[in-house]
């Protein structure tokens, strides 16, 4: 730690921490509002026979986050408070807690299918997006960031890819906004389609995990559809997330040798560096449950309650963190590319997940 004293930055740092805590407190309050909203409509039936359960807390939390996002930006408080908006942190805490309720046998079965699904989905969707973005004349760096985001897991994949290809900051912000804007409606529409198709929960979970772009929305869609769907969706998405490191390495290799013409190759250590470490926490939690250290009862109920709170905080932050300012600068071509690829991704994932989880490796119980 530095021993130098500089009043101004320390004071600014103190203010920044205080404002981040205020931001976090705001997120907690909004999560309570989302929970309250959920109980108002739960169990009711909406027009066209749509069950009120569709309006589960992920939707309320994200919508409330979006509304407050707009208000905070209008009164210029969004920037000072945004240190407390930590979608990824809350989501990862929730996922590790979720691991404490999943048998390791299920992880092994689901992950095996998820690896096959992940390889098919990531390569097909990546190649299609890269090709289509090229046809629309998008720059290579934006093509790489977008292709990784849409084929793997949205925001964190976009950031990992951007680091590998040295993309511009606005390209990351732009793709991040695209990811959230498309993932939010998909989070609600995908469970509705699954229900209309009478899709079994494991298949639906695998479909959400392979199709919806950001992990938060995957968990949201699974939560809306059912408990088993939530677990399978989380496992499938985390397996796909684990491929980030490999893609980041291959991208760094391609850009440094083919695009920039450098002779030295990037280190393979990037694979571990980019590996999502919280997945290890999820696996350890599952092992603790499998070997009886964590048992069903009060402790498990408390963990699952905290898991839901953590997810709710993440969904509120997802709405709060959406930024659409970059769209004006970049035009509509990338939006068209992204939407076409999302439709391709959705349909391909539907077929692949049904073949793998409905036929090749069916999961009967979780």
């Amino acid at each position, binding site marked *: 730690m530095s021993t130098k004293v500089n009043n101004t930055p320390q004071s600014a740092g103190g203010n920044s921490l205080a404002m981040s805590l205020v931001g976090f407190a705001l997120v907690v309050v909004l999560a309570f509002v989302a*929970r309250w909203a959920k109980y108002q409509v739960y169990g009711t039936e909406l027009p066209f026979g749509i069950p009120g359960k569709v309006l589960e807390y992920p939707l309320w939390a994200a919508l409330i986050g979006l509304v407050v996002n707009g208000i905070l930006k209008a009164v210029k408080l969004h920037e000072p408070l945004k240190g407390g908006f930590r979608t990824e942190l809350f989501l*990862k805490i929730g*996922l*590790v*807690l979720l691991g404490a309720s999943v048998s390791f046998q299920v992880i092994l079965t689901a992950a095996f299918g998820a690896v096959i699904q992940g390889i098919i989905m990531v390569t097909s969707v990546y190649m299609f997006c890269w090709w289509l973005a090229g046809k629309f004349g998008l720059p290579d760096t934006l093509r790489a960031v977008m292709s990784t985001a849409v084929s793997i897991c949205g925001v964190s994949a976009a950031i990992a890819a951007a680091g590998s290809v040295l993309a511009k900051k606005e390209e990351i912000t732009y793709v991040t906004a695209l990811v959230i804007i498309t993932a939010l409606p998909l989070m609600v529409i995908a469970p509705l389609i699954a229900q209309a198709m009478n899709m079994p929960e494991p298949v639906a979970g695998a479909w959400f995990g392979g199709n919806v772009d950001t992990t938060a929305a995957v968990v949201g869609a699974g939560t809306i559809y059912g408990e088993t769907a939530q677990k399978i969706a989380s496992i499938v998405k985390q397996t796909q997330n684990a491929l980030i490191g490999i893609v980041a390495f291959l991208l760094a290799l391609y850009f440094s040798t083919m695009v920039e013409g450098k002779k030295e190759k990037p280190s393979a250590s990037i694979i571990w560096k980019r590996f999502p470490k919280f997945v290890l926490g999820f696996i350890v939690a599952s092992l603790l449950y499998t070997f009886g250290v*964590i048992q069903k009862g*009060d402790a498990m109920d*408390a963990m699952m309650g*905290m898991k*839901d709170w953590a997810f709710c905080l993440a969904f509120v932050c997802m709405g709060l963190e959406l930024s659409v300012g970059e769209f004006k600068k970049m035009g509509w071509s990338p939006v068209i590319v992204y939407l076409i690829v999302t439709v391709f991704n959705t349909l391909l994932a539907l077929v692949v997940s049904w073949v793998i989880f409905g036929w090749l490796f069916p999961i009967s119980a979780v």
Partner: protein
Amino acid sequence: MNISEDWLSVIIAFVLMALAILGVIAPALVKF
């Protein structure tokens, strides 16, 4: 010392799990 968000999430989750196992956090307290 810098700690990544991934490891921080794992630490927080396991602390919460330990508190639940020890009975410090009761289910009613965190019912969603």
